[in-house]
């Protein structure tokens, strides 16, 4: 069987295929830029941010693990010691003009002994000094170091101290600094920020839960501020006339540990020239407290401090 094929049709199809193909090629030749991966975010208030970043004072006294970004051998201290001499020039060029560069070299050359035991004995607790930002070079740390050395401090002693001080690091700053040339180098070499990236045996993407000096979740002012802000969002008093500043309502709020209300807020007292207006202010405040729950951001470990929250609602800023 023979099929009659219209040549014009074939030509038309061929042309269409060509045009469409050309179009596809042209459009697809444009590099496709993959969209950036979206990141989950939480919107938090400044108070909550403060709470998070302040850390926890009464948190576990575990040694905070440094943020590790690379898997590698942990040998920062040895390198640091070794670099001290190599980076003399860097110290000179990068140190602030206030501090004379010359004294830097002298103690390092004069007292080569102390650094060695330091480097050998403290590979574990080394992360701390690296994280600390160097104090401004207003005072000459080397000069201080010299003074301390001049005052009969024998080299071995610091070694013992540091061994003992491996676990905590409450007040080791001056002692470490006085015998740690690597630290001196880091203090003076401000260019070295990127060099302090740590390597470890396992990746640890998150930083520690906060420093031991943080005010932590037991910072009462922090959760109080967050709570005030949360309730304030729902508080819509309607009076802004004369003597608004005289209207107040004291309300006690019984709370559950999950941040919800244990029972209805209790109006303890109302004050103001008009009883009905004062009562309306109190009722408005009660509605706000109930409406804005659950206050799940309240720190559970501090539940005793917010088991019953006594609050005063006022209108002094309404006019």
């Amino acid at each position, binding site marked *: 069987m023979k099929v009659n094929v219209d040549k014009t049709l074939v030509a038309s199809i061929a042309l269409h295929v060509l045009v469409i193909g050309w179009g596809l090629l042209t459009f697809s030749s444009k590099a496709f830029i993959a969209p950036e991966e979206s990141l989950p975010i939480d919107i938090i208030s400044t108070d909550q941010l403060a709470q998070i970043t302040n850390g926890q004072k009464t948190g576990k006294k575990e040694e905070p693990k440094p943020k590790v970004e690379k898997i590698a051998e942990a040998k920062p201290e040895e390198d640091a010691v070794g670099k001290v001499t190599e980076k003399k020039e860097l110290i000179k060029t990068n140190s602030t003009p206030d501090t004379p560069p010359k004294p830097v070299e002298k103690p390092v050359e004069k007292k080569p002994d102390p650094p060695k035991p330091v480097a050998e004995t403290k590979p574990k607790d080394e992360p701390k000094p690296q994280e600390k930002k160097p104090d401004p070079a207003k005072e000459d740390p080397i000069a201080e170091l010299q003074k301390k050395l001049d005052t009969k401090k024998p080299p071995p002693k610091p070694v013992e101290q540091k061994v003992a001080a491996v676990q905590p690091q409450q007040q080791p700053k001056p002692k470490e600094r006085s015998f740690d040339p690597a630290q001196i180098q880091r203090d003076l070499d401000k260019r070295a920020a990127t060099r302090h990236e740590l390597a470890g045996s396992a990746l640890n993407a998150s930083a520690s839960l906060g420093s031991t000096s943080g005010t932590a979740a037991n910072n009462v002012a922090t959760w109080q501020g967050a709570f005030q802000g949360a309730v304030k969002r729902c508080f819509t008093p*309607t009076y802004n006339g004369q003597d608004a500043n005289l209207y107040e309502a004291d309300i006690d709020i019984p709370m559950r540990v999950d941040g919800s209300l244990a029972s209805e807020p209790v109006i303890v*007292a*109302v*004050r103001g020239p008009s009883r009905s207006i004062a009562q309306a202010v109190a009722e408005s405040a009660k509605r706000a407290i*109930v409406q804005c729950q659950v206050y799940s951001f309240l720190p559970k470990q501090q539940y005793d401090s917010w088991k019953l*929250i006594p609050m*005063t*609602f006022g209108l002094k*800023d309404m006019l």
Partner: protein
Amino acid sequence: MNRRRFMTLTGSTLALLGGGQAFAQQPQQQGRLRIDPTEFRPIPIAITGFVPGSPADGDVSNGVTQVITNNLKRSGLFAPIDQAAFIERISNIDVAPQFQNWKTLNAQALVTGRMTRQPDGRLKAEFRLWDVVTGQQLAGQQYFTSPEYWRRIAHIISDQIYEQMTGEKGYFDSRVVFVDESGPKERRVKRLAMMDQDGANVRYLTRGADLVLTPRFSPNSQEITYMEFGQGDPKVYLFNIETGQREIVGNFPGMTFAPRFSPDGQRVIMSLQQGGNSNLFVMDLRSRSTTRLTDTPAIDTSPSYSPDGTRICFESDRGGRSQIYVMAAGGGQAQRISFSKDDNNATYSTPVWSPRGDYIAFTRQGGGQFSIGVMKPDGSGERLLTSGYHNEGPTFSPNGRVLMFFRDPGGNGGPSLFSVDISGRNELKVPTPGFASDPAWSPLLSATAGQ
């Protein structure tokens, strides 16, 4: 029909829940967290369509819903939620709503209601106010009235909601008397007119043959006193709203003007022109006896009583410029209370005492502008609420929370009525049929029903 008889307000309370806390003047306890909001936000409220008792009640049900919504919205204290956003449809107001549906809309309060024509022809209005957050009923009442007064029912329900949520009396069930102005500027016809506070139900009380000025309500809202330019000198008149009858107040040889009732309604205080001066006089409406209150070679005018009737405030140029003075209601030493801090040439006029007693409102002229403001009766706490080319003649709402005044933009236009909260917020134009000036707010009608 006598207004006292027109409505049977069966204030049968279905339930009134909530609160019950004793008012206590206790000192604030130590160690309490404080919250002092700095910004004002209206209360989100859901006003559901009133359910018609029968299909014939559909229009009146919609009308009541709209009036309540409009009242609360215009007060500036409430933010009615758009009905299009409602999740739940209320078909039976005797069943508790599903509060979660209203919490989703962030409503703090919910209004439900029903309008039903009774077999005797009267209209039955029921409403409930719910606290969405706690799920409690805050108010529930029913009223019976003649069908033509459905707007008043809506105003009364609005007042109930307002009072329940704010602790203050409402002001919606009230009227405004004003001077209606029509015609070209050079031949302006001025008529006495009266309307509901929201601009509805306008009634003209005079025909406009003679010029009228400064109308003021009596405390029971049954009479109006005003000044009219007749054949001779301008005189102060009394006008009975029910009967339409009018009479001249007193028989003084000169011009009398700027009248106002005393809080008990037994006296009218006014100015009497004598030569180039004018002084304040008060006339007892029963005995028709008059008493001179001031005797100065100056212009004393625009007197207004304090709510307790013991003092009056008025304007006087005895010090060289028009300022506001306060003195005892029986006369005596007057104390100047208006002192401009930033403009020594500023003048103050048209003082009016708040029904609540806490403020005196005034017109201030200075710096090429007319402003409406308030100050405390001792002159402290002066606050200008609005300023412009020409603002004048403030009058307080029955609860002292809102001021109405008139504004003339100049040019070939004419004046209009505006309202503003005493904090200076929520300035709104009051709808009138034409140009309007000299507004005077009545007391709350439901509060004066027994007077």
